[in-house]
């Protein structure tokens, strides 16, 4: 597939942007820019939440006041942010080997700097990179991409305008090596055949993101090796 509808926006990622965090990354998909920071594994802050056999994974999603086109007077902890925090947490918890770090806590903080559609996907990709940067053991990386259906055409990686046009929007998250879907969300309606096409397109998008993420991690490891002098 080489027509423009199946092209993703330009992606760019950087590791280690927040020096004080255990792991951090910045991920850009087109104009959507997201920063993720991971603190952990560390001691559980709230003893009552401690798990004896697993690590406790917590996540918070915040949007900057200037991230959307209209300046919004955001309230921290509004329903949409809470729901997205929950979704990210569940997705990342699935891939982290929590049984290796019992009685500890891993905090994932995701900050949206600029939003132009596909923020959930960018957040998950950034969180994956941040967790890898923190050296937290994972089953596989999680990559995410969105796809939609407008004017009878499946479109990959919708921006804000395309997303608001009223067609369906499918957000997908997969673990590429294990070939398992960990996140699937859709709004609006699609016939089953169309849905299969759109989902297949999203999976291709996720795999492309996975290739890019692996490149970035490999480059980062080479840098670390170089600095170590080997």
């Amino acid at each position: 597939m080489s027509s423009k509808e199946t092209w993703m926006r330009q992606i760019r990622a950087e590791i280690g942007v927040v020096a004080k965090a255990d792991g951090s990354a910045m991920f850009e998909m087109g104009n959507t820019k997201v920063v993720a920071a991971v603190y952990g594994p560390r001691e559980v802050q709230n003893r009552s939440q401690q798990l004896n056999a697993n690590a406790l994974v917590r996540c918070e999603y915040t949007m900057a006041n200037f991230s959307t086109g209209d300046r919004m007077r955001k309230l921290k902890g509004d329903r949409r942010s809470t729901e997205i925090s929950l979704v990210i947490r569940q997705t990342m918890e699935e891939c982290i080997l929590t049984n290796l770090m019992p009685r500890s806590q891993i905090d994932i903080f995701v900050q949206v700097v600029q939003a132009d559609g596909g923020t959930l996907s960018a957040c998950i990709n950034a969180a994956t990179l941040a967790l890898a940067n923190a050296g937290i053991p994972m089953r596989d990386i999680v990559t995410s991409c969105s796809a939609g259906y407008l004017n009878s055409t499946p479109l990959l990686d919708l921006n804000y305008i395309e997303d608001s046009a009223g067609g369906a929007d499918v957000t997908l998250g997969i673990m590429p090596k294990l070939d398992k879907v960990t996140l699937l969300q859709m709004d609006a309606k699609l016939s089953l055949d169309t849905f299969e096409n759109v989902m297949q397109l999203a999976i291709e998008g996720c795999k492309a993101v996975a290739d890019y993420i692996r490149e970035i991690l490999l480059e980062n490891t080479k840098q670390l090796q170089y600095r170590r002098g080997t």
Partner: protein
Amino acid sequence: MVGLSIGEKYFIQGGIAQDLRTDGRKRLTPRPIFVETGVISQSNGSARVRIGATEVIASVKAELGRPSALHPDKGKVSINVDCSPTAAPMFEGRGGEELSAELSVALQRCLLGGKSGSGAGIDLSSLAIVEGKICWDLYIEGLVVSSDGNLLDALGAAIKAALSNTGIPRVNVAAGASGDEQPEVDVSDEEFLQFDTSKVPVIVTLTKVGRHYIVDATSEEESQMSSAVSISVNRQGNICGLTKRGDAGLDPSVVLDMISVAQSVSERLINTLDSQIAAAEAGEDEL
């Protein structure tokens, strides 16, 4: 932040007393500043500033509004800072509210002058469109992404850079509006006026540790401070605002000395910042 042991505390205090800080700097040497402008394409102006491990983003948005009755010939500016949880786990939920409020108020004091609007570093009358009816409202938002001390200075620099990057759309006012009518305005999408930032001050924070003060403290050094004074100075060397933090009392002569030190440090800082901003803007134009 992980707690410091007694040995580490003595090391930091002793180093400062001997003019050799833990990262090798002298007391009055700041860390290098890196400025990037135009990072938020949806805003009228934006900048990202990095000082060591501290990283902040500032964004300026301009919207049409109505001037206040007390100052019909001036526009309005509001400054708001938000501390992202990515900077520190304790900023999660509402944990960062206190610090955000403190930073917002300190910035307003340094950049916007007093209640009457006099002595503001930002020229509010340049924001007026139709006296008494329409003006520009500037919303300046700061976001702390990563924190390693000296947040106020970084935010001040970021706001100055963001304002340099700000383009106010040209407005054509329909002639012939009378009395109480709201005039018709046509906001141009193409033409922009660059905001004049020559009078915008920079903020220099002097942190007192023991008997000496240092410029550009890291968060380790800030944890050992007895008090800190943040002074905003403009290009002419005039003081535009002053904030003291911390519990310890300061001798008045010490405060006067700190002010003169801040004035000399700020001169270098303004030059560095201006050249960084010019380089950032030039780099952006090439893209």
